[in-house]
């Protein structure tokens, strides 16, 4: 009885084996059937081995002091600067070591080093600084006697208004508002096998300097130069796994913020009862956040389907010791209900995306995303002391805000012709919030897009759509609890209808070395059910760029663009229906161009870039009492010219001569003419609108050391 089955078994086994073998053969790279790459010698391949480097030594002269000009680059003061930079590379049999340095002589210095063995492990270390320069026209009467304490000069004459500060002028000392970020980075990766990759990234960020805050004193305030001194540590650890169509990653993020100045005490400059001159505010508390994430993707053979997912759970906390209600012991204040907040926030983020080509020329995408911020901080009654002066006599509950956001996206595209693709999609966002006027809102959006390569030289990409954001109800009880006008509709919570469109075109006329690109965008928001608050806004943008390769040695580009943002809002002074309206129009124009000339003279190249921008903000107010009035225009004008001439003296030696000119003029009614005592109830720092012309002339020498040599493969 068994014998007759053998042939069947044999044939099944045989056929299965052959089918499997054949299938395996068919899926093996064709190369194996044709050639053996292992036999390829690559004799002409100039693999690199050895060390090479180039070192830049330069100097620059800056013509004028200008905080805004020096923001981020470090050239904020007139005078001479010495600069160093360069890079170096070592490579040998897959081992690599690279270094990079930039602006070592400036406050924007960067130094990085990385290395490892490619395909096995790698590491990096880095240090960089970023200067933040806000104002150098400011002055103050305060002195930081300690990082958390500002004192007035001895003999300070207090008054109810700034005009009464009789010794103000003699007490003012210049105080720049500027800070620096220092950034240390380190990390690496290790390939445990062809499937597993481990990585670790660490970043330590320090920020120190002087910032602006305001110290309120009921109907008066002083703008204060507070000392900044804080640190953030960021750690990313993870492992990635890949095996054919499957990719997985497990990652942990830790972020730890430490503020070395947890409060700010200042002496009130205005009249205050004896023994109650001090004021104090809290500074940003230490906080931490940790998050565990699992993400991955799987690629199916059927219909080119790919599923990608991501799931993250995080928890943040903050438990700094709380300050007392007031610094002034003379003021009767209740005992704190807690000595620290014990604030906790849980976060959840889940996402899954599916893409597939279910039919020829057809692609679909389905995506779902869920984000949640669950603030689990307990609600506790608090008894406020108003600006360190008197007890409010009320209790207030803190409102730990939470939200849940769900997003669904479905889209599809079809290649109608080889040169015409049409796409359409539907997006929905559901958002639930706590403690706010709107507990639940939904936004539905639909869009369509056409991508058309009309000819070889013209391609057009156009998209348009509309969205409608609806709410379950605007809870005026919540609004009333906040003292809000019941007709107010906050723009991020309100019903909104949006229409939008965008167009991108690229033109490359055949046989002409010219390319033109055009983009235009328009979006219109209508808050048709908002009586007070934002009632509408429109954004329009256009941009045009032209590039012309004049010859193999010369190229030219020009560009221009404009963006206009117009917004309307309504308010109610009478705490009833709208009795005033504001219209905002922000306009921004850019024009620019440049050229590159190679071998202008022997071994000399030139690059020139010019940019002109104009910003213009106009605000018109219409009130029942005084009709329509217009604020002076807030305008900015920037002219920027950068010219670099590079001369290659030899294979090892190059010279760079650079010239940079920047002019910036601005009119800003918020600070123009506002001296420290201009506002009767605000002692300000007297910042001036930016207005500068700065020239920077630089010369640097670049010298090459060594040369990577061809190596035998």
């Amino acid at each position: 009885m068994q014998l007759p089955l053998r042939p069947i078994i044999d044939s099944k086994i045989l056929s299965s084996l052959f089918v499997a073998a054949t299938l395996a053969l068919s899926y093996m790279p064709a190369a194996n059937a044709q050639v053996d790459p292992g036999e390829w010698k690559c004799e002409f391949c100039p693999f690199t081995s050895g060390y090479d480097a180039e070192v830049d030594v330069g100097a620059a002269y800056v013509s004028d002091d200008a905080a805004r000009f020096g923001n981020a680059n470090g050239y904020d003061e007139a005078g001479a600067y010495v600069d160093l930079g360069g890079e170096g590379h070592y490579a040998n049999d897959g081992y690599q070591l690279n270094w990079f340095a930039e602006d070592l002589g400036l406050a924007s210095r960067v130094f990085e080093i990385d290395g490892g063995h490619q395909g096995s492990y790698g590491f990096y270390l880095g240090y960089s600084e970023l200067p933040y320069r806000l104002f150098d026209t400011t002055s103050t009467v305060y002195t930081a006697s300690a990082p958390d304490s500002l004192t007035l000069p001895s003999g300070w004459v207090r008054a109810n208004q700034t005009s009464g500060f009789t010794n103000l002028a003699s007490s003012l000392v210049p105080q720049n508002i500027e800070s620096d970020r220092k950034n240390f980075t380190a990390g690496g990766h290790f390939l445990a096998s062809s499937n597993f990759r481990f990585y670790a990234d660490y970043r330590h960020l320090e920020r120190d300097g002087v910032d602006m805050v305001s110290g309120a004193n009921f109907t008066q305030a002083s703008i204060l130069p507070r000392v900044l001194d804080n640190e953030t540590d960021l750690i990313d650890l993870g492992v990635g796994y890949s095996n054919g169509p499957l990719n997985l990653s497990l990652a942990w993020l830790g972020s730890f913020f430490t503020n070395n100045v947890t409060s700010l005490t200042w002496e009130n400059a205005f009249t205050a009862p004896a023994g109650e001159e001090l004021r104090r505010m809290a500074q940003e508390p230490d906080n931490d956040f940790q998050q565990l994430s699992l993400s991955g993707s799987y690629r199916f053979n059927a219909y080119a389907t790919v599923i990608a997912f991501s799931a993250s759970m995080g928890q943040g906390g903050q438990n700094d010791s709380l300050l007392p209600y007031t610094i002034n012991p003379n003021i009767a204040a209740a005992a704190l209900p807690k000595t620290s907040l014990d604030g906790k926030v849980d976060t959840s983020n889940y996402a899954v995306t599916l893409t597939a080509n279910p039919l020829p020329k057809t692609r679909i995408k389905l995506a779902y995303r869920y984000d949640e911020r669950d603030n689990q901080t307990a609600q506790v009654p608090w008894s406020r002391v108003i600006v360190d002066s008197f007890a409010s006599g009320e209790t207030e509950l803190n409102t730990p805000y939470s939200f849940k956001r769900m997003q669904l996206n479905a889209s599809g595209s079809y290649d109608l012709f080889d040169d015409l693709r049409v796409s359409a999609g539907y997006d929905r966002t559901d958002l639930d919030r706590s403690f706010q006027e709107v507990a639940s809102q939904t936004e539905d959006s639909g869009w369509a897009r056409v991508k058309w390569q009309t000819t070889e030289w013209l391609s057009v990409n156009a998209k348009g759509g509309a969205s409608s954001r609806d709410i379950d109800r605007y809870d005026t009880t919540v609004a009333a609890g906040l003292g809000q006008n019941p007709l107010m509709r906050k723009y991020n919570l309100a019903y909104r209808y949006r229409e939008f469109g965008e167009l991108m075109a690229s033109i490359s006329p055949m046989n002409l070395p010219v390319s033109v690109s055009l983009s235009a965008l328009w979006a219109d928001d209508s808050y048709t059910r908002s009586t007070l608050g934002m009632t509408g806004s429109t954004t329009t943008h256009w941009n045009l760029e032209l590039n012309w390769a004049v010859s193999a040695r010369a190229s030219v580009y020009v560009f221009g663009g404009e963006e206009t943002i117009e917004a309307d809002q309504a308010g109610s002074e009478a705490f009833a229906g709208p009795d005033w309206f504001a219209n905002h129009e922000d306009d921004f124009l850019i024009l620019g161009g440049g050229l590159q000339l190679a071998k202008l003279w022997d071994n000399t190249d030139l690059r020139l870039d010019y940019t002109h921008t104009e910003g213009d903000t106009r605000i018109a107010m219409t009130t029942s009492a005084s009709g329509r009035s217009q604020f002076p225009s807030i305008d900015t004008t920037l002219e920027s010219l950068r010219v670099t001439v590079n001369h290659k003296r030899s294979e090892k030696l190059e010279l760079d001569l650079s010239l940079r000119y920047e002019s910036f003029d601005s009119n800003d009614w918020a600070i123009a003419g506002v001296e420290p005592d201009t506002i009767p109830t605000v002692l300000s720092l007297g910042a001036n609108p930016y207005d500068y012309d700065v020239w920077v002339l630089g010369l640097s020498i670049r010298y090459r050391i060594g040369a990577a040599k061809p190596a035998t493969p």
Partner: protein
Amino acid sequence: MPINMKSRRFHKLVTLLLVCTPLTITALSADDASPEYSRKGADTCIGCHDEQATLDLFHTRHGVPSDPRSPFGRGQLQCEACHGPGSDHAGRVRRGEERPPVIRFGKDSETDVLVQNGKCLGCHEESADFAWHGSGHDDNQVGCADCHQVHNAHDPVRATASQPEVCFDCHQQQHAQSLKPYSHPFDEGKMDCSGCHNPHGTGTTNTLFVRQTLNDTCYECHAEKRGPYLWEHAPVVEDCSSCHEPHGSNNPGMVSLRGPMLCQTCHSQAGHPSIPREADGLADAAPSPYLLARNCLNCHTQVHGSNHPSGSKLMR
């Protein structure tokens, strides 16, 4: 027996068919197999393509023979790993006849962008952070080589100073916004787009944030805003872009509207929040603390939240 014989013959026939059919298909497939690989690999290619811009590949990670994953690792397909089989391309062509193309990369390439990207993803799908498929760039059929210069040892998109210029080639609105008077320091080459966005997709939204949400992304550099604070400002914890324009603004602090009007789009309480502020409150008239200097922030300085027990009005 006859039945068994028949059965055996039948099984032999089936076996023969099963063996021969796939082999025939395989053979036919081999015959149909489009272009073959060159006989000498890169040595064939470099015979013609010996310009420095091409050979600079050997200064990049793709040109490292000791890495078995590299196209030039032992046994790999060298140039043809990316550009596809090149035998026909390298072969003789008749006078006037167009040389058969290989896969070319970049915006001007006639090779379909999906084919281009397929070549890159064949090796880099793992490192493309899993989320390329379905990302905004994938949806818009952006090619890897639209941004990356694979043969360039100094790929501009991988350097902070030069990356924005690459991105702004398409994202022209963001280019314009980056030049506004108040913006992050893109123009100084000290911040790049990938500080906030992962162009390879992140499984977030089409905005491609490097962290799970927009706020989480901002907290990378502004962790002091994260809290949780005792007194929170509702829109802050949900969406920084409710008030800020991260690519640039005409207004200080990169806020979307001027104060105090920005605050008055949400705050309508009786008294000072709801009073219209007009030009008669400017410095040359009756200087108003509600309009000048830091306007609302002259008192409510802790707009991102306060951790002071008396800070419910964000003044402490």
